C-alpha cells in the first residue's frame, strides 16, 4: 500500500499527523513534509485514517488491502 500526497496543495490543517503521528511528518510550520511513502506492514489502518483526515483531500491511498482506495472516485 502506498500513500501519495499532493504536497503543494497542503494548507497545514495537520490532521494527518494528529490521527497518525508515526506516519505523517510535518515541517516546523505544520505542513506535510513528504510527497508520500510506502506504508509499513501493519500500519495500513493508520495510513488510511491519516489520509481520510485531510480536509483538502490531497492524500491518496494506492493498493489499500481493504480494496477501497481513498478518496473514492467521483
Amino acid at each position: 500500500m502506498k500513500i501519495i500526497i499532493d504536497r503543494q496543495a497542503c494548507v497545514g490543517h495537520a490532521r494527518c499527523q494528529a490521527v497518525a503521528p508515526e506516519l505523517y511528518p510535518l515541517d516546523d510550520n505544520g505542513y506535510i513534509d513528504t510527497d508520500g511513502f510506502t506504508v509499513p506492514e501493519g500500519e495500513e489502518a493508520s495510513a488510511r485514517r491519516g489520509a481520510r483526515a485531510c480536509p483538502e483531500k490531497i492524500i491518496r491511498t494506492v493498493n489499500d488491502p481493504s480494496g477501497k482506495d481513498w478518496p473514492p472516485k467521483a
Partner: protein
Amino acid sequence: MSTVQKVARPDHVPPGLVVDFDFYRDARYEPGDPHAGIAKLVAKAPPVFWTPQNGGHWVLAGHPELFEAVRTPEVFSSEKQGLPPTSYEPKQVPINSDPPEHEIYRLPLSKAFSPKAMLALQDDIRQLAVELIEKVRPEGRCDFATEIAEPLPVSIFMKLMGLPLEMLGEYRVWVNELLASGVPEVRGEALRKIGVGMSSIIKARTDQRRDDLISRLLDTEIDGRAVTFEEMQSYCLLLFIAGLDTVMNGMCFGIRHLAKDQALQAKLRADPALIPEAMEELLRRYTFTMPGRIVARDHEAFGVQFKKNERVLLMLPAADLDPREFENPLVFDLDRENKVHIAFNSGPHRCVGSHLARLELKILYEEMLSRIPTFSLDPERLAQTHGGHVIGFDSLGLVWDRS
C-alpha cells in the same frame, strides 16, 4: 429587523434561487440553538442561493460548492469579506489577500501559530483553565460563556500578543460590535477603534521589544525585507479580531452539547483519550463561522451567474451539515466514518489559529470534565445566542451538584 434595506433581485438571479436569509438575525435561528434553524434552511434551500438581506449577496451553503469556491480565489476573492458592505473596511493582510500575495503575508503567521509553537503554551492554557473552573466549581452553577469561555481564550490570546489585560472588557465590546452588530456604521466605527488600539501597542513595542507575538512579528521579514508599520497594523487588527470571539464560541457550542448529553459526558470522563475525536465531531456539528468573499470577475458555476463585485457568504455551518457529505448530519456520532469538517475553512485561507484553537478546546474539555461533576443546562437561565459572521453565545447557564 435589519436596518439595511432589502435589495431587489437582480435580473440574472432566477427567482427560484432567492431565499430571504439574514445571517445576523434570521427568524430561523432558534434562541440558544442557531444550528436548528440552519438545518431547516439547508433542508429547504438550494445549495447556492441569493438573499436580499445585508446588501444582497449569494450564499454557498452546499459542501461541494463551497469546497470548490474556496480553491478558486481568482473568482472568489478575499479582498472584501464583511457583510453588509461598509465604506470603512481596511485591507487586512493576509485575510484580505489572494495568491500570490497571500502566501507572502501568511508565512510569518504560519510559523508563529504552528502546531509546535502552540504546544509551548499548553501549561499556561491549562493553568488558566483550572483557575477559571475552580473558581466556579463550589458555586454549583455558572454562566459558562462569560465566566469561562470568554476570559480563557481571550486571556491566552492577549498574553500571546502582548496586549494589556486590563483592556479585556473594552476589547470584547469592540469585537462584539464588529461581528454581531450588522449595522455598517457600528461595524466601521468598531474597526476604527480597534485599529487605534493596535497602533499604540505597535508603537510601544517598536520602541521596546517584549517576549510576545507583536514583538516577534516586528522582527519578521516579508519577502526578504522588514515589515512596515501598515503591515503590522494589518496583522494586529486581523489577529485581534480572529482570536477573541472564535474559540470562546467553539467552547460554548461544545459545552452546551455536553450539558444536554450526559451519557457523552460519562463516556468522556471514563476515557479522556476520546476527547480529541469528540472535539472534531462537535466542531463539525456546530461549525460557527461564516466568512465572506467578493466576486472578482463574471463567472458561471454551480448553475449560477456570478457577477463581478457581488458578495458571497461562505456558509460553513451549512456545509458541515450537508447531507450529501455527512449521513444524518444532525446526529452527533463519535464513530462517524467521515468526521472531516471545514469548521476552520478549507483552501489557502484555512484558519491559521486552528492549532491554538484545538489545543485550547482539548484542555478546556479535559479540565471541565475532570473537575466539574455531571453538568446540565440551567433551567433558570436560558442560553442566549447571536448570528453574524461568527455565530455565538451571549450567555450559557450551567448547573451541577456542588456537594
